[in-house]
């Protein structure tokens, strides 16, 4: 395994307070005169009322904020509106109501020209089915966003080569998409979305079309990349394990609305509804819960230290020597509490 996700998270924790993208009360209804209908329904806009008006509610009253440098995962089953939501965030689809703020700027107020500029330079997107252009080589595909911007050939190809090397496809520059495996194709998709050095990186179910083994490999690769790049990421998935594995924070969607959002740990420890519980039940808690969540006030001696953001499954190693208590330290190395052997054992046993 590559670098642990927890370590990456710990490192970016410091800058995580600045909000990069914020959605406020965002709605999307499909159908004729959606705006009028939504206004007339007002606060009574339930799924039933909307359906009765002949519209399809894709996204309902979503509010969330994505902090700079974090991986924000939107998880939901098919039809839950997650793909629509990510397209609303980049304004590929116009919302019916609500506000979308990108670094404080209201995207919905931006002109078409401004949107083109924002998408060209500050956003990148990876697609579920790769969306590679069949007539271009790997090099041409990765350089495509730069070509669209009018970057000179030499400069864009150099940049593209760097990106191709970054995703581990060096040497395949002249291949065409159809000559590549699914995993390789998605590496190209990732390299392409990174070519413009986006601040905000959308990944729309990037690994869903891949075989389980390849998916795992690509997740590791993704974690490795993020440890280097430190992007602000909105990651869409229907796979709860993937969400737990990658996320700093998760929003779970059902029928177009967010059911619960929080850290993986919060979801696993305190599922808000039965729906969320169905997902979290199968997750081993020790792999999600972190030391600072189960620590108690520091009292007496401790054998060894563990970082506050370490998951219990990793911290358990320290107790192998027979220690009963381990000190928990914050990023600055100060002791902020103690982790007890009994609590760790209970979590490991699945309690």
């Amino acid at each position, binding site marked *: 395994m590559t670098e642990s996700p927890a370590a990456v998270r710990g490192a970016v924790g410091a800058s995580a307070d600045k909000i990069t993208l914020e959605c406020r009360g965002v709605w999307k209804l499909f159908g004729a005169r959606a705006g009028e209908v939504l206004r007339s329904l007002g606060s009574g806009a339930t799924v039933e009322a909307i359906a009765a008006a002949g519209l399809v509610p894709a996204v309902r009253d979503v509010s969330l904020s994505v902090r700079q440098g974090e991986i924000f995962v939107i998880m939901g089953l098919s039809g839950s509106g997650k793909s629509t939501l990510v*397209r609303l965030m*980049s304004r*590929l689809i116009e919302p019916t109501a609500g506000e979308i703020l990108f670094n404080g700027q209201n995207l919905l107020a931006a002109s078409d020209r401004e949107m*083109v*500029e924002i*998408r*060209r*330079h500050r*956003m*990148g*997107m990876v*697609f*579920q*089915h*790769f*969306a590679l*252009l*069949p*007539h*271009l*080589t790997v090099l041409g595909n990765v350089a*495509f*966003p730069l*070509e*669209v*911007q009018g970057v000179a050939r030499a400069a864009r190809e150099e940049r593209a080569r760097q990106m191709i090397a970054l995703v581990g496809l060096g040497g395949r520059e*002249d*291949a*065409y998409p*159809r000559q590549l495996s699914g995993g390789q194709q998605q590496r190209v998709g990732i390299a392409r979305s990174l070519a*413009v050095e986006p601040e905000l990186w*959308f990944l729309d179910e990037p690994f869903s079309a891949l075989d389980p083994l390849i998916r795992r490999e690509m997740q590791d690769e993704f974690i490795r990349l993020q440890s280097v790049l430190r992007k602000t990421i909105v990651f869409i998935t229907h796979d709860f394990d993937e969400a737990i594995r990658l996320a700093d924070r998760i929003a779970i969607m059902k029928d177009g609305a967010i059911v619960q959002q929080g850290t993986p740990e919060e979801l696993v420890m305190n599922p808000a509804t039965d729906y969320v519980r169905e997902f979290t039940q199968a997750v081993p808690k020790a792999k999600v819960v972190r030391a600072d969540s189960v620590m108690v006030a520091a009292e007496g001696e401790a054998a060894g230290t563990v970082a506050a953001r370490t998951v219990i499954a990793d911290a358990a190693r320290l107790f192998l020597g027979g220690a009963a208590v381990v000190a928990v330290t914050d990023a600055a190395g100060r002791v902020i509490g103690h982790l007890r052997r009994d609590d760790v054992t209970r979590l490991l046993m699945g309690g």
Partner: protein
Amino acid sequence: MADATAIPGPRGLPRWAGWGLVLLPCAALWLWGAPAAPWAFDWPKGWTIPAARWITAFTRWLLNDATFGLFTFQELTRFVAGVIDAPYRIVLSLLSTGFLRGEGSTAVEITPPLSWVAVIVSFALLGLWAGGRGLALLVAACFLFIAVFGQWQSAMVTLASILVAVPLGVAGGMALGVLAWRHLWFSRAIRPVLDLMQTIPVFAYLVPILFLFGFGPTAAVVATLIYAMPPMTRVTELALHRVPPELSDLGRMVGCTRRQMLWRVMVPSAREALMVGVNQVIMLSLNMVIIASMIGAGGLGFDVLAALRRLDFGAGLEAGFAIVALAVALDRLSQAVAVRGRGAPLRGGPLARHPYLVASLVTIAAAAAIGFVIPWVQSYPQAWQLSTGTFWSRVVEWINVNFFDTLEAVKNFFLLNLLVPFKRFLAGLPWLGVAALLAFAGWRSGGWRLGLLIAALVTLIAATGQWEKAMITVYLCGISVAIAMLIGLPIGVLAANSDRLWSWVRVIIDTLQTLPSFVYLMPAVMLFRVGDFTAMIAIVAFAVAPAIRYTVLGLKGVDPRLIEAGRAMGCSEAQILTRIRLKLALPEILLGLNQTIMFALSMLVITALVGTRDLGQEVYIALTKADPGRGLVAGLAVAFIAIVADRLIHAGAQAARGRLGLGGSST
């Protein structure tokens, strides 16, 4: 489309009761109505809509007086003519006449045309680039065939008009298709126009075009464009809509402008489907070659037409086969370009990156240089030409001498027992009853809209005073289609069972379809002389191809699990065929019937050359008299018949699909 199964019969009565209610009065009207309501049989002269006169007057006005403020209509047609004429002259000079200075007999040749060697090598190189050695050999063989049989000059004239018509057709069709893709209203507006353009017989618009553009290759190219463009428009719209939405999302995410979106993302992604459209344009342009020669296109089409007029079967057949050779070469080339896989891009200078282009240019230059010294390199020498024309003519002659009585007996038998009675029956039907029956059938299978449309179209045919000719058309087509289906179905059933047989049958029907339709007429005329029977034979020969093709496709498309299930239940082969396969293949077979009817209708005007008395003849007369109104009105009547048949069968196929739970919209 309306769901046919949702339309209920009258409450409490079986479904056939409705039919009874409509059939009885119609039959009564037919049998006893003539004295009481003569207007139901013959549309009164006084009520006739003088549409033909209006259209003729309108075209005259367009040509003489119409103006759009800045320019007149005539200037517009001259401009269009110029746009077509300039590239045509250049290509023609290149391929056929050479570049000349001066006019007529005083012209001085500046450069000769491309040598036949250079043309063959260039096309072979194109084949090598697009599809490899096999294709290169095939293309070279096709062109060599043309040269060996002495058709080179004519073929190059035809090729020149194709090379001009195809890019214009592709560009125009794509432009319209892109507009239709971008704007729903445009798509809705253009769809009925496209329907009409494809169902109206070409002859009908030959007359107005002749009127607007005069006799000559330009008018021929315009007619070809009108005929060949609609499929490109449809294919473009469809192909752009079928590009995965992720790709358009990608285009917008990387900040493409509208133009970048279209040309960098959508069009390249839809390339393979678009190339199918290009292929269609090429094939349809070749279909038009002979018809276009009637309004001034020279080349192979003219040769076939002239041979037909001389009743020189052999010469016509050779020119016809030259068209087929051209069609095969261009068809395979465009298909290969569509699916061409790409290797790694070539690097290096412009010479190294385009080896095929360079090789072709070198060959052209070398052949031109050598051609000055050695004449046979420049133009294919006459001494090396072969001709089988006299052989074929002799075969026909021999048959005529030895089997005249037999042929005559066969012909008379069919005429007396089938053709004439059927013709009399149809001619005696009241238009009102026919309109009512067809409208009822439309309502039953496709809802009240379809019923109304059919009633309106049938009434319009009567109202423009063409009822009698329309009935003769229906009679000729009806019998031919019935015979084509009777021949096509059993062959289709046999071919569906045996892949080997199918591969043979396919080659034959492909050839039947690419062979210019005129060619069918010639042997029929030779053997049976002019008349309805001859026309029927020609139509059947042309229309049998789709009957076979769709039967095979339908039978092969039947879910093999259902056949297995039938076998497991102990069905005999015959039972499997009648109870399972034919039943499930019914929608496809109905579509085949539809295509057969369309093919038959498109042959009509051509059979007018052998003296039928139908709408085709009307169009043909209008062509010789240069009367745009008369031609267009008769053409529209044929189009109406086609639309009625098409909509009824489509609705029927849809209903059959619904009943069988096959879902999906018809193709």
